[in-house]
């Protein structure tokens, strides 16, 4: 299995506030990596370092075996990396259809106008957005906005997909819908996914491996089971080990 | 949201309606005025009634609005006088009234070209008068000359318009190259030893061209230019310029550009009280009556003027020169202007009237035949209330004014009252020039 993403000993601070302090991790092809941690742990900062919005103060980022540290964002994107934003950033004055179409046009594929439109339609259908194709992106509600965010990322046919809290603010049925789509997308598009997520059961369910960040440092890494039982994680993340263990029990029993 | 938008639309409609109404109310006056012209056009001639159309643009808006308005007053006065006498008698015996066709050019050359085109091809005017200012006249000439339409340029002092090879454009104003030369001549007359001159002109088209001509003339006359600078248009503070003039040891200052900067320059110069400077001549500002607001600071300041109500041009003077006198005397013109507009005419107004007068002369001799008119203008040498009028006829500077000359005015205090008097040339002078300027004593 080849390594898609390797982050080595990355440091990043903003005016004295240390957002990342020596974070390292490796993502293999075809896996879903969950990135969890309390708010302000540095998860989104890590995404921004990987995608080139921030240059790390120290350390390196490797994508598909190439050192991309300090590359501009668009070049990293062109390597086959797509991301969603925690606060969705659709192109508000473009329609849903146009949003996806723009993304297709700037993927590495060379498609004719007709093919691009067909492809856009396919992706909108895949995410159940076809009935909203002509709405302006600014008119969407949160749930649809998140789907559009995902649609635009998928439209790039990426090899690595970075999802930043795509489930936040969704109700349980919407969460279930999104999870389903993410799983199917992974299969259909042959994706490798890194996802930042707060909705614990989701990430526990879907991720192959989990990395826990806390105050800019990597606190733990392992399978969901391992993470759920790690007392440091429980302490940092949920507060009460007993309470956490109780739900881990439930979780395990439900899985079985 | 929508209801708010409707509210806004409603407010806007009301506001626009109010302003529209106001505009209509205010414009009524001018509308009536123009409405009078057709009445005056009633055929009074022997044979059949005819109308001669005189076209021009004027800057009702924009930066040239004020000067342009006076020029328009002058033209209107001329047209009214002509029409009240039943019109102009053509060589073929017809008597034709005059109709003024004019539009607002916003002080912009793009509009000028558009509108002169309209005047020629749409309104089919017979003769043209220029807009106010050299820049606009240059733009207009580029259109009119191609159509072989005679245009009398008034309010345009630039020399360069007349070096472009135009054949049908004639200048009434003394050109910029001679604008300040008489101020130099006067200085020579007053004090042979005053040779250190400072030049401080505005960095604008007109002032710059006056400056370069003046500079050449000064050098020719053996003056020493100890300081030379150009200030950006809109300058209000002259402290550092004055400091440098003071340090340069200049004994005379020539400069200026527009009213506002000339006004501020003199105001600050007076306050600075530079004893070494004995002679100050400023462009444009001094002939304006508003210059008197400077009070004591204005005393002794000299300025070139195209024309003043006090000029002494007369039929006798014409006779002395052996040329024809044409049109009203200076006093007649001033009186007529005063009775119509309630104020003394300045040179912009006089220039407007004179443009009409020249056209009247031409029409009387040549009727509506442009080529004949051109011939008459090329050989014209007359004197009017405006002064002598004679155009350069060779192709290299065709149409340039060579007969008319500037007068110099100086603000003087007589019996504690500030008055503007003509001090040069001697023939036209009302009083002797005060020298040196009072503050240097």
């Amino acid at each position, binding site marked *: 299995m080849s390594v898609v993403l390797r982050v080595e000993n990355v440091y990043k601070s903003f005016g004295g506030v240390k957002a990342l302090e020596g974070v390292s991790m490796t993502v293999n092809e075809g896996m879903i990596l969950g990135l969890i941690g309390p708010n302000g742990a540095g998860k989104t900062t890590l995404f921004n370092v990987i995608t080139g919005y921030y240059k790390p103060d120290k350390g390196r980022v490797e994508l598909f075996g190439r050192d991309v540290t300090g590359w501009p964002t668009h070049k990293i994107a062109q390597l086959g990396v797509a991301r969603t934003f925690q606060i969705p950033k659709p192109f508000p004055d473009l329609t849903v259809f146009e949003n996806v179409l723009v993304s297709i046009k700037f993927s590495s594929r060379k498609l004719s106008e007709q093919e691009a439109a067909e492809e856009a339609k396919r992706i909108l259908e895949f995410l159940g957005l076809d009935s909203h194709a002509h709405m302006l992106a600014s008119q969407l509600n949160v749930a649809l906005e998140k789907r559009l965010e995902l649609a635009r990322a998928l439209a790039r046919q990426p090899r690595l997909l970075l999802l930043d809290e795509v489930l936040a603010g969704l109700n349980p049925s919407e969460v279930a819908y999104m999870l389903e789509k993410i799983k199917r997308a992974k299969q259909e598009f042959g994706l490798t996914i890194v996802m930042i997520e707060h909705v614990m059961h989701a990430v526990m369910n879907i991720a192959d491996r989990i990395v826990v960040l806390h105050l800019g440092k990597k606190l733990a890494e392992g399978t969901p089971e391992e993470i759920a039982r790690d007392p440091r994680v429980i302490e940092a993340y949920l507060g009460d080990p007993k309470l956490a263990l109780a739900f881990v029990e439930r979780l395990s029993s439900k899985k079985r | 949201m929508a209801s708010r938008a409707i509210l806004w639309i409603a407010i806007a409609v009301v506001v626009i309606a109010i302003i529209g109404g106001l505009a209509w109310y205010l414009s009524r006056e001018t509308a009536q005025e123009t409405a009078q012209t057709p009445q005056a056009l009633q055929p009074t001639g022997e044979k059949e009634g005819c109308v001669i159309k005189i076209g021009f643009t004027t800057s009702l*808006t924009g*930066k*040239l*609005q*004020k000067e342009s308005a006076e020029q328009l007053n002058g033209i209107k006065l001329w047209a009214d006088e002509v029409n009240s006498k039943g019109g102009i008698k053509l060589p073929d015996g017809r008597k034709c009234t005059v109709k003024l066709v004019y539009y607002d050019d916003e002080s912009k050359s793009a509009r000028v070209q558009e509108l002169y085109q309209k005047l020629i091809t749409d309104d089919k005017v017979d003769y043209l008068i220029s807009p106010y200012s050299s820049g606009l006249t240059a733009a207009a000439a580029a259109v009119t000359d191609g159509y072989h339409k005679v245009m009398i340029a008034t309010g345009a002092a630039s020399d360069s318009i007349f070096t472009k090879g135009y054949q049908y454009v004639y200048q009434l104003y003394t050109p910029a190259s001679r604008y300040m030369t008489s101020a130099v001549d006067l200085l020579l007359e007053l004090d042979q030893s005053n040779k250190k001159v400072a030049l401080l002109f505005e*960095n604008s088209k007109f002032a710059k061209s006056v400056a370069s001509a003046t500079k050449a003339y000064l050098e020719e006359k053996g003056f020493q230019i*100890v*300081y030379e*600078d*150009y*200030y*950006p248009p*809109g*300058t*209000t*503070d002259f*402290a*550092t*310029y*004055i*400091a*440098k003039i*003071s*340090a*340069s040891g200049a004994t005379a200052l020539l400069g200026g550009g527009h*009213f*506002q900067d000339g*006004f*501020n320059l003199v*105001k*600050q110069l*007076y*306050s*600075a*009280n530079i004893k070494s400077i004995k002679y100050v001549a400023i462009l444009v500002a001094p002939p304006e009556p*508003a210059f008197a*607001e*400077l*009070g004591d*600071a204005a005393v002794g300041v000299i300025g070139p003027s195209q024309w003043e109500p006090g000029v002494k041009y007369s039929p006798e003077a014409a006779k002395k020169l052996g040329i024809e006198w044409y049109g009203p005397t200076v006093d007649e013109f001033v009186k007529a202007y005063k009775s119509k507009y309630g104020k003394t005419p300045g040179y912009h107004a006089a220039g407007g009237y004179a443009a009409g007068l020249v056209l009247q002369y031409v029409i009387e001799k040549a009727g509506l035949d442009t080529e004949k008119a051109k011939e008459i203008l090329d050989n014209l040498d007359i004197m009017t209330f405006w002064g002598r009028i004679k155009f350069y006829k060779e192709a290299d500077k065709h149409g340039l004014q060579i007969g008319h000359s500037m007068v110099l005015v100086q603000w003087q205090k007589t019996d504690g009252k500030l008055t503007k008097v003509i001090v040069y040339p001697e023939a036209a002078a009302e009083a002797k020039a005060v020298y040196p300027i009072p503050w240097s004593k």
Partner: protein
Amino acid sequence: MVVSPELIMGGLVSGIIIGSLYGLAALGLSIIWGVLKVVNLSHGALIALSMYLVYTLSVMYGVPLPVALLASILTGFLLGIAAYYLFVHRVLGGPELASLLSTFGFGLIILGILELAFGGIARTIPVSQHVIEVGHAPIMLVQIIGAIIAVAVAVGAYLLLYRTWFGRAVRAVVMNAEASALMGVNVVRVLALSFTLGVLFAVTAGSLLSLAYSFTPETGTKYELYSFTIVVLGGLGNPLGSLVGGIILGIAEQLTSVIVSGSWGPLVAFLILLVMLIVRPTGLFAKL
């Protein structure tokens, strides 16, 4: 011509005096830009308007000058409140273009009224022409008084912003409008008053400048363009920054005039602006 140290001295001093007035003119733009994030393109027109207010009252109606000045400033205050609700409130938080255009429209209305009422001829207010000479440069007494008032107003504005409840509320709104609302600040009122304050500074500057120089309706344009530079130089919303920025610009302009030629003066201003925008768009001094 030799540029003597004496002339340089004169340039420096007049630069400081004129610069203080530039700074005062910029202060209004700075406050509005800093607090409301609106570049007030009616700034120059407001400056011109106040000049004509002083003129109308003192010259046309013979009101004593100090009263005319105060009345002009008071009118500015009322106008500021009205202008906020008519031209600014609706475009706050929208695209820049909307606020640029609506304030520009407001400026045009003022200019139109001034053109209509007074025409293009320059007006002047007769005051004492007394000057003090520094390095040959004649510096008018009214300019010096103006500069002193400018410094006083800038310091006053500083104290207002840093030492009063209102000022703290303004700064709080700039830093975090929602948190300020949570402290019990009426945010809309603060915005409206800040705009009014900006207008107030503009008319104060205009009223003072009207005493030193003659003016036309277009006089404000130059101050507006210079104010952009000064605000970028001094930091948005920082009164002392505006003052210092104005003085820097004044000195640069006057020294250019002394050493090279006055006609290059404006270029220096725009080059300073461009360099600042690229090198340090936050200004030399901390913003509000």
